[in-house]
């Protein structure tokens, strides 16, 4: 068993469990479909179930965009409507087959979603809310007013179903089969590379970018997928009811979709299905509420947000997890970390070369014409008083902030204009001053997100052999990174439950898992006690021994002196000293910058050593 793990496959136990789960799920799906086909249901029940199944598919789209990726979409009814009108007009006005019309509807929804996402997802937040509401409004206007094409407020009657499923029972069977398939897809998506990227973006977009996730592309993908599911649900809905009209796809319906996913729980597909079922059935049970029904709806949204932010399913799962401790990690599956592919290069050549780098915020010169040269296999410290521009410089090097002037070359490649995630692929790693982990993910998943984005370099046969291509290999590699910093035992824990010191270590492990050649550490020692600091120093020394080059910012001079081979000092955004620790820490300008000048009247020229 151990041997098979080492060769990079999932442990057989896990595979077996998954296979069993899938078998049970498929059986349940088959039985549900059979039941729908065989059971004689009243027209009323059929309609209710058809609505529930098709709505649930659209709501599963919201699970992807809102639950996994943390982006708001207030136009799901619009995408639902595009799919529905695709089938409605396709099978009537254009005489297409049901499948052809369905395909067109879904493609149109996908196109609309992609365009909307591409134009607005760089902005995020309330802009996205506004853009989706606008789109929803415009679509409703078009459906109502373009009478020649959409038939206006009267709607489209006599929509055709596929010939084999013309009866309501079998058609309901189709809807239920589709729902089971989509729910499985959405569940599976969460465990894929894209799914993990989505969650990383949701939990901390900046950190996701820095470890190599293209956050923008990930968000566009999520939004488009969500639109596809919206369109698919709508297309099935149109076939189910054989009549559509614009008011079925209004903004109010988008809000209903949103409420469904929030009530059930946005983080898991089961929540979406649960929420949809409840909110379709509730109106039937709550008929006595009549006019105030929607008001109760609105009130419920507020109450859910306040008291049950993870929805019913999320709440239940949290309870369940408390009863059941996390699966312990089998030490046998930890792969020794192949830290960098540069161990062979024991040379001292230049790895990062920065010329005249400036970043001005209005009149403030946060970084002012800084030159910086970092040599391979060294620990290079960047120090300076608070507000001297250290973190800003790091942000410019990382690509989070665009420089006003200057150039950055990594291993001779000009990276000045590259976005952060591309720089990560060129071999930059980073930890943050204020911890930026993916809070809702497990420790292991935090590291896997970085581990599955290795640099595209030719020299990695050893790593590839170990890591394999499957999840199991990735898991081993990620565990290796956690083991390197000494916290592999906590891999299964939610990252939020870790102590501060351990969270810092997870950040470092996450950076290491991306196999960087140059690692930026922004105040890794901040907030650590003496014991933890000693461990940190040992860790840094070990990293250097493995051929990693490190740029470290810290205020603890004793620590800097112990680990640094080279020190650069910044003050007011300018480089005021550069050299070995012995030279720099005795430099008069540096002492002046930290302790103030003995005689302020005496002016000194700022010359670097």
């Amino acid at each position, binding site marked *: 068993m151990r041997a098979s793990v080492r060769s990079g496959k999932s442990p057989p136990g896990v595979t077996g469990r998954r296979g069993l789960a899938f078998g049970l799920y498929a059986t349940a799906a088959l039985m549900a479909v059979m039941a729908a086909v065989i059971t004689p249901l009243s027209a009323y029940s059929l309609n209710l179930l058809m609505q529930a199944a098709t709505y649930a598919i659209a709501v599963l789209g919201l699970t992807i965009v809102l639950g996994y990726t943390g982006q708001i979409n207030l136009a799901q009814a619009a995408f639902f409507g595009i799919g529905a009108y695709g089938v409605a007009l396709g099978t009537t006005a254009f005489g297409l087959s049901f499948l052809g019309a369905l395909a067109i509807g879904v493609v149109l929804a996908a196109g609309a979603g992609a365009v909307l996402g591409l134009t607005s997802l760089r902005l995020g937040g309330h*802009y996205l809310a*506004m853009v989706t509401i606008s789109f929803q409004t415009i679509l409703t*206007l078009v459906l109502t007013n373009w009478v020649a094409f959409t038939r206006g407020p009267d709607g489209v009657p006599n929509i055709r179903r596929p010939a084999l499923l013309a009866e309501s029972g079998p058609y309901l069977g189709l809807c239920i089969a589709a729902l089971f398939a989509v729910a499985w897809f959405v569940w599976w998506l969460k465990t894929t590379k894209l799914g993990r990227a989505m969650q990383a973006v949701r939990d901390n977009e900046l950190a996701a970018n820095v470890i190599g996730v293209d956050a923008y592309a990930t968000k566009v993908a999520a939004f488009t997928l969500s639109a596809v599911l919206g369109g698919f649900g709508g297309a099935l809905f149109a076939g189910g009811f054989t009549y559509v009209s614009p008011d079925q796809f209004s903004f109010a319906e988008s809000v209903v979709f*949103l409420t469904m996913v929030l009530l059930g729980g946005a983080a898991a597909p089961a929540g979406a299905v649960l929420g949809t079922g409840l909110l379709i059935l509730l109106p039937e049970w709550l008929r006595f509420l009549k006019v105030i029904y929607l*008001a109760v709806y609105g009130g419920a*949204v507020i109450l859910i947000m*306040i008291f049950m932010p993870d929805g019913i399913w999320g709440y239940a799962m949290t309870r369940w997890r408390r009863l059941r401790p996390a699966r312990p990690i089998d030490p046998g599956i930890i792969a020794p970390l192949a830290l960098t592919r540069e161990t062979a290069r024991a040379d001292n050549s230049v790895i990062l070369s920065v010329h005249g780098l400036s970043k001005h915020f209005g009149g403030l010169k946060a970084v002012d014409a800084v030159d910086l040269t970092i040599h391979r296999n060294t620990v290079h410290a960047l120090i300076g008083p608070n507000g001297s521009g250290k973190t800003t410089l790091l942000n410019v090097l990382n690509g989070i902030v665009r420089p006003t002037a200057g150039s950055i070359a990594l291993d001779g490649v000009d990276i000045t204009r590259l976005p952060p995630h591309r720089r990560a692929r060129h071999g930059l790693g980073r930890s943050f001053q204020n911890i930026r982990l993916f809070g809702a993910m497990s420790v292991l998943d935090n590291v896997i997100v970085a581990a599955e984005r290795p640099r595209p370099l030719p020299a990695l046969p050893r790593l590839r052999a170990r890591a394999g291509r499957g999840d199991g290999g990735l898991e081993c590699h990620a565990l290796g990174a956690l083991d390197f910093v000494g916290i592999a035992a906590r891999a299964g824990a939610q990252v939020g439950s870790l102590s501060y010191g351990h969270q810092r270590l997870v950040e470092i492990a996450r950076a290491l898992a991306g196999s960087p050649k140059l690692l930026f550490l922004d105040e890794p020692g901040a907030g650590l006690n003496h014991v933890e600091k000693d461990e940190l120093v040992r860790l840094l020394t070990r990293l250097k021994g493995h051929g990693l080059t490190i740029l470290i910012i810290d205020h603890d001079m004793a620590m800097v002196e112990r680990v640094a081979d080279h020190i650069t000092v910044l003050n007011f955004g300018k480089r005021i000293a550069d050299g070995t620790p012995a030279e720099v820490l005795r430099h008069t300008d540096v002492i002046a910058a930290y302790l103030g000048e003995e005689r302020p009247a005496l002016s000194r020229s700022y010359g670097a050593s």
Partner: protein
Amino acid sequence: MGFNLQLLFTGIGVGSIYALVALGFALIYRATNVVNFAQGDFAMLGAFAMVVLAIDLELPYWLSILITLALMVGFGALFNLAVYYPLRNRSFLPVIISTIGASILLENGVLAAYGPRPQSLDSIFAVPGFSVGDVFFDSQYIVILVVAVVMVVVQYLFFERTLTGKKMQATSQDKEMASLLGIPVIWMIMLTFMYSAMLGGLAGILVAPVLFVTVGMGSSIALKAFAASIIGGFGDVTGAIVGGLALGVIETFGAAYVSVPYKDAFAFLVLFGFLLVRPQGIFGERISEKA
């Protein structure tokens, strides 16, 4: 020529409504960093309060205005306690969703209480307006414009010249730091909601005579006002006014020369254009996250 001038005036009149509501957005955004999707419903509530007080209860118009404004101040406090305050330490998404929930609750609550029939409210002025050449100047639009400009000046002076205004700005930028500096953050947020609800109510009082009073009036104005805020530059007071006026004019000319049924689409098309070319708006600045 006269026709175009008339359109221009009407556009500015409509635009000043958007500007007034956009000011409320800007205010709450500056104080809490949150977008209040129920801002338009504040206006709707104000308008309905006027209908109840001035028509149903036959109170004097001026007294109805005062009572409405006082009620709105109280409502702002309630709104804060029920919708925003419990979520103040969470990310923007739950807060946005909560305000959307509040919007649905308010609109359907009023609908249940008052029914769907549109109400109308007379203007406080006996004279409907005056004509210069071919152009008719509606007195209610002139009042709206004047009030909008006055509120901009007041808001500007408040934020830039008073200590309370600066405390509110500090609260918006960093709640934790502000409270460490001894700023009563909870009170600042409470004040913001009270004032912005009053501002919303004022907008409702002013627009009620030119529009029908319906439960949906607020959200349709608010969407435009929101678009106006983005076009002007989010959170920027001048931007809210300029964006609002520009949108009103574009919409009026669009309806006159392009298409009446698609009147509501123009605002959003302009918005898309801005988001593509200049997402920070006319007066806005890009703010990046601290690493």
